[in-house]
């Protein structure tokens, strides 16, 4: 029983990692229909931001890097949207190839600038150690990631529901034509959405430096899982992303506990595919009268 309980915080922290990686994608994919394969590389950009800031922020770099990475990755997303993706709206297959290519370019760029080997991002001293719980230790790093994920979700929720810009974003997501007819500058909303989506990837990258490698391939390790969360949760739904991340995280942690890591991956994939067979629209559906 204790072993069973000790897996619970692990499942939650896997969920937090999945959620952070997928959060930005939910919006760019859900609102704009852009399959952004470079999303993983924006995560990588966030991680390297923490590495670069280490030079003057020392061990507190991870904290300082959270806003910095949001802006850096967001700005890169904005540039990508303005220069390339904008020309490919309504051609999802082409954006898929385009963004994949951009992802490869960013990976190689990271390799040229920082070298192929992983780099070290030191965690702040106050994040070492953990809280003993159910016979094992829940690390502070995991709790920190959980907090970052929760705060990100909260911020997005507040933005969407409490601000004018956020409401415009939801309007465009639900029905682009109608929103445009009502005077919403949908291009501007797209820009902003892409900025926020990419920025969230940057935040994820900073958080992930606490538990994983920081190298040019960082993004590739999380992109598949991120898409899994987005599709299973339902496009563009914050609630869906949270629920899907929780479910996948818990399935993953318990499946791995009872079997092994390779089999757990298979179980998660099979469960997702089976679920999507029964409910192709995902857990939560965005109801809309749009005809597109």
């Amino acid at each position, binding site marked *: 029983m204790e*072993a069973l309980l*000790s*897996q619970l915080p*692990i499942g939650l922290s*896997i969920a937090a*990692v999945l959620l952070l990686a997928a959060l930005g994608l939910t919006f760019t*994919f859900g609102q704009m*229909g852009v*399959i952004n394969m470079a999303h993983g590389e924006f995560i990588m950009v966030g991680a390297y931001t923490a590495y670069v800031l280490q030079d003057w922020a020392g061990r507190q770099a991870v904290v300082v890097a959270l806003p910095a990475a949001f802006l850096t990755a967001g700005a890169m997303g904005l540039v990508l949207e303005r220069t390339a993706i904008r020309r490919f709206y309504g051609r*999802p*297959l082409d954006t898929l190839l385009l963004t*994949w290519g951009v992802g490869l370019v960013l990976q190689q760029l990271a*390799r040229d600038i920082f070298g*192929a*080997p*992983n*780099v*070290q*991002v*030191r965690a702040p001293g106050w994040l*070492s150690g*953990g809280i003993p719980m159910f*016979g*094992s*230790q829940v*690390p502070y*790093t*995991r709790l920190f990631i959980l907090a970052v994920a929760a705060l990100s979700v909260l911020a997005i929720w507040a933005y969407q529901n409490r601000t004018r810009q956020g409401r415009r974003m939801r309007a465009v997501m639900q029905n682009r034509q109608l929103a445009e007819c009502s005077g919403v500058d949908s291009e501007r909303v797209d820009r902003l959405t892409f900025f926020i989506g990419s920025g969230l990837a940057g935040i994820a990258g900073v958080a*992930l430096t*606490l*538990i*994983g*490698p*920081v*190298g*040019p*391939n960082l993004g*590739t*390790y*999380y992109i*598949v899982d991120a*898409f*899994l969360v987005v*599709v299973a949760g339902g*496009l563009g739904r914050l609630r869906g992303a949270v629920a899907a991340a929780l479910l996948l995280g818990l399935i*993953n*942690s318990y499946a*791995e*506990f009872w079997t*092994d*890591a*390779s089999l*757990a*991956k298979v179980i998660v994939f099979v469960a997702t595919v089976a679920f999507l067979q029964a409910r*192709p*629209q*995902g857990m939560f559906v965005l109801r809309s009268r*749009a*005809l*597109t």
Partner: protein
Amino acid sequence: MHGKSLLRLGSLATAALLALTACGGEAGTGDGAASPAGNTVKVGVLHSLSGTMAISEVTVKNAELMAIEEVNAAGGVLGKKLEPVVEDGASDWPTFAEKAQKLIRRDKVAAVFGGWTSASRKAMLPVFERNKALLWYPVQYEGLESSPYIYYTGATTNQQIVPALDYLKEQGKKKIFLVGSDYVFPRTANKVIKAYAAANGMTIAGEEYTPLGSTEYGTLVNKVMQAKPDAVFNTLNGDSNVAFFKQLKSAGATASSLPVMSVSIAEEEVKGIGVDNIAGQLVAWNYYMTTPGKTNEAFVKAFKAKYGPDKVTSDPMEAGYNAVKLWAAAAEKAGSTDPEAVKKAAGGISLELPEGKVTIDGANHHMHKTARIGVIQPDGTIKETWNSGKPIAPDPYLKSYPWAAGLS
């Protein structure tokens, strides 16, 4: 409808991703058109310059290119300069086989230096045997192999894993937990470890594998902590090591409460993992940057001069460097770069290399090497705490160990 078509795209994206992770970029260089035929000898250098293994393999490529330069500076082989043809295996095993075929057939190289993972070597093996060409493979591996067309300049099982187990046994570690990446090296290595344990009164507290490139170790660390082993034997490869050690440390394990013996972590990897997370842990190799001796001093100095003062040297890099030197010596002795002639001449060649004396075994194509156990220091270097005293004769099939009778 909008939602549905997007969904289809979503699954398409996922499918594309899965397919894409399986292939990779291409970065071929050097067609050799520049030099007139006859004055140079082409040699292939085939490592992953992209993908998950690039972290490790790029450094070996660098060491091999440096060795080629040194051979050239000393007059080349049989009066001819060596001309490296570099190819990217892209961390993808079929790509290794393809590129090996290209190097042999199109570039007509005299020998290929390359590979890291056992999967890449197994993929290339039939290519080299079919073409009767030579592969010099520079990384420690799981043994149980001896191809007439491959020279293994890294350690085989009895020069790394068996000494590591001897060391753990000497230290009174009886209950061992096995952690590895899910592919041929860790699975075979663990078979050997289990046979050794059974014969030496050690118990296996658990055996876990994770997919290559895995970065989520919460559950695995939990399993390790609950099994309460005396030590962990770690055969994880590549970036997974970073995630494993970070998460192991944050779960409260230290080098003294839970020693981890690793066989795939060298100086280069320590930097990426973060010294904080791994200081005090054990590794098993044949060479460290700190290994004493004039030859090593010169090697380290030359490497830093060429690639930067902050660069480190490691066992696989040294083995790659050795491979070039040993092949050049064999070709000189044979008076030809023809693979069959080189094979005939190679047996018994003995050179003073950075790790000490290395001798080619003519029968099984492995090297006589000294085993060394090291402790990772807070400054990121590795300090030797134990060595085998003299070079150990390679025994890839563990024929001289009675407990290994049931293996292979």
